[in-house]
């Protein structure tokens, strides 16, 4: 559907774009219009299809069906190289920079127009000029690893400008920037737009979208939900478009009132891989027999929070009290022994050993003690018998003797993972996105296991981006944004709008 009021040619137009991966629809019938000289925000939750759409535009993926037009002419990109030749480039969340090479060398890498000889002084001069012009100053002779993340991002943008990209796609660029750096970036974006270039800005943060974009397109569940001029858009409306439906409140048994706190977190601070603070002074508690859900768009500190709670990363400040014991700086093993269970987001990368059998994986944490081992020796019959019992009880299908567990389907992998954790009868169970990517049956099974833990009297901390999951299971909800808790409410008080706004960074007036 072409906007009838617009008579000028669109920089980019996508029509009816479909894209699936392994049977899962990532983009369905998506229409998108990008004008010349505008900053266009792409808004949506995780899994809404934003990255897929951008990757199609940038030539990384080919759409299953649909059409693409650039400046009114049909276009189809077979590779990112094609896209770049046509003037479309993307800055990914994981930079494609060669760490050991200099800025100038990274700009030159793969550049089609350069000659055989590398004229370093010319490259450096051009890099400096480009940087100055757009407010993206970097030392061209510096190696990438010497630069801060913000500076590295500048190099990625410079790469695109050096190839004279007309359409630049930035995927969640402010996730790695300080507020000051983010402001500088917005200035650059506006400057590029004023020159006639177009910038697509993927984000989940409403205040940014409001600040820098001309128009907003919202994606949800792989489809376009709406395209509006930013000036006309209310945050509330945007949030509702992002989150979408009226969420059903749970109809489960409220159960016994929660007991004593089993997990107390005070002023917790945990660093990210890059050494920045990802968890910035969080405080909350989880009581026995309750499920506390933490909702938030991924990348706001959830991973670091989980690692800090289970001992995979030592917090830089604050304390974690588990069942009365201070485990703040305890080892992972001590955490396990003190009764913490953890269902990580990465099933085969962390929660399970992909090459080992299902029985072995089910014993992954319990193997040190009887019945699995006696005096340092493994008791094979225990592996077999306990394994068989658990496979039966938790309905883990597809298991054959000697089969590496990685060959099981996603649902069965997760059932095995969760089964193992609950068999340990933890005091506190931390679960990250436990039903992500699972089919209906497996989702049901895993949800029931979590509720069973709740009934048993464990405290459950559910960290997820899936609002349906959170609402179905939680008693209380916390919202995480940029490493802090920005909202607390009992589940009855939750609504799509309220959660959407908090997750997108809009603070509430009254303290929760």
């Amino acid at each position: 559907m072409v906007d009838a009021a617009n008579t000028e040619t669109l920089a980019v137009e996508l029509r009816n774009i479909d894209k699936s991966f392994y049977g899962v629809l990532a983009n369905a019938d998506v229409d998108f219009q990008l004008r010349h000289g505008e900053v266009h925000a792409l808004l949506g939750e995780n899994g809404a299809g934003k990255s897929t759409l951008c990757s199609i535009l940038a030539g990384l993926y080919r759409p299953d069906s649909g059409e693409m037009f650039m400046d009114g002419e049909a276009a189809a990109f077979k590779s990112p190289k094609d896209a770049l030749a046509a003037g479309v480039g993307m800055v990914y969340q994981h930079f494609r920079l060669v760490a050991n090479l200099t800025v100038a060398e990274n700009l030159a890498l793969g550049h089609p127009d350069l000659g055989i000889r590398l004229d370093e002084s010319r490259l450096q001069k051009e890099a400096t000029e480009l940087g100055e012009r757009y407010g993206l100053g970097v030392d061209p002779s510096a190696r990438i690893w010497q630069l801060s993340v913000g500076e590295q991002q500048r190099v990625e943008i410079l790469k695109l400008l050096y190839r004279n990209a007309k359409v630049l796609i930035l995927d969640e660029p402010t996730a790695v920037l300080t507020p000051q750096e983010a402001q500088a970036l917005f200035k650059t974006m506006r400057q590029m737009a004023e020159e006639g270039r177009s910038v697509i800005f993927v984000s989940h943060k409403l205040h940014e979208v409001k600040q820098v974009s001309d128009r907003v397109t919202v994606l949800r569940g792989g489809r376009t939900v709406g395209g509006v001029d930013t000036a006309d858009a209310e945050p509330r409306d945007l949030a509702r478009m992002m989150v979408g439906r009226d969420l059903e409140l749970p109809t489960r048994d409220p159960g016994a009132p929660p007991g004593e706190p089993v997990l107390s977190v005070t002023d917790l601070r945990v660093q990210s891989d890059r050494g920045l603070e990802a968890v910035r002074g969080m405080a909350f508690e989880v009581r026995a027999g309750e499920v506390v859900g933490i909702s938030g768009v991924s990348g706001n500190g959830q991973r670091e929070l989980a690692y800090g709670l289970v001992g995979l990363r030592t917090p830089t400040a604050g304390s974690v009290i588990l069942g009365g014991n201070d485990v703040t700086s305890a080892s992972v093993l001590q955490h396990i022994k003190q009764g913490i269970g953890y269902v990580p987001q990465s099933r085969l990368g962390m929660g399970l050993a992909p090459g080992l059998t299902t029985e072995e994986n089910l014993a992954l944490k319990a193997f040190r003690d009887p019945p699995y081992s006696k005096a340092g020796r493994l008791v094979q019959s225990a592996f077999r018998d306990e394994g068989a019992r658990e496979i039966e009880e938790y309905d883990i299908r597809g298991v054959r003797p000697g089969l590496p567990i990685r060959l099981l389907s996603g649902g069965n992998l997760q059932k095995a993972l969760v089964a193992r954790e609950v068999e340990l009868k933890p005091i506190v169970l931390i679960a990250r996105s436990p039903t992500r990517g699972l089919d209906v049956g497996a989702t049901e099974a895993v949800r029931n296991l979590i509720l069973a833990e709740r009934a048993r009297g464990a405290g459950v901390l559910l960290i997820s981006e899936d609002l349906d999951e959170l609402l179905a299971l939680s008693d209380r909800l916390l919202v995480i944004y940029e490493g802090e808790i920005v909202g607390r409410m009992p589940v009855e008080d939750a609504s799509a709008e309220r959660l959407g706004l908090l997750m997108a960074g809009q603070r509430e007036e009254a303290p929760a």
Partner: protein
Amino acid sequence: MSTRRFIVEPRGLASPWLKLLVPIGSVFAALVVGAIFLALTGENPFSVYKEMAEAGFGTTRSVAETLLTATPLILTGVAAAIAFKMLVWNIGGEGQFLIGAVFASGVAIWLGDGAPAYVALPVVIVAGGIGGAFWASVSAVPRVYLGTNEIITTLMLNFIAINFTNYLIFGSTSPWRDPEGATFPQGRPIPDGSRIPEFFERLDYGIFIAIALAVLAWYLLGKTRWGFQVRIAGDSADTARYAGIGVSNKILGVFLLSGAYAGFAGGLFVAGPVGALDPRSLILGLGFTGIIVAALARLNPLAIIPVAVLMAALLNSGPSLQSIGVPTATVTMLQGAILLFAVAGEFLIQNRIRRPDKSPNTAPSSGEEASPA
């Protein structure tokens, strides 16, 4: 989308037949390659191979010799297998073997004639293991504490060990050198009390010790708590850490154990058929051959036993080739070709090749989120 003629994708579960077929196929393919070169130089491959088979297994005496050579190969093979399974690339088995021999012969000489066999022999063999572990630690410690890549360090240490062993006998008057070797420097014979007794021709009890140690390795890796942790860490270091397993000390342990096994091989060899620190009889490439044995046996300690015997037969057939005018280097060529096919064959076990079908992508049951939204 570009159409490819065939698709290569990871195989789910390889059948036991395939796992047996690839090693056998590797040997066969190597024999074919060898046959081509033999034929090109005017030899009859069949008669050459027949001669080799007879040299390895033809008479009871040759069987004894084959088993004698298999003794250190079992251990250097297990040494390589233990390490490689854990993704520790210890290619220093050659050097660890030699330093094990140095330690073993040194302790034997120091114990002297007085020590009774039931004391001397275990001590000497253990000394071999300590020597090998010590040599491995020179690579292991930087690997674990500094992250230094062990491929180069273990490789270089081989040549340092070779030269050092030569130095002990040819370059100095060390205690290892025979004071009575008037005309030509040679290793000092170790006392009888420290020699492993023979029981059939030259075959000594070392073969049983080697087999026992191989079974022990199989047991340690497969049946103990420690071995379980090692296997988890070798499979996925992140998962191991998640489960509270200390990955660094497992790497260290495996590395040292691997070195120890190579050292045991050196100790058994020097206390067995060689009887002295004699460089010419010790520097035979047994450490490198152990890698071939491990690769062909697909890193399984029990399978290494028969594979080592086969490889030993191959090694021993060299001299007999000389008598029929064929270069002994044929043996080396075949060894290299076997290893090459074995490692390339691993590709077939891990992957399968098929024609692309018209139907949309079927999910490769991975369980991870399929779409990067």
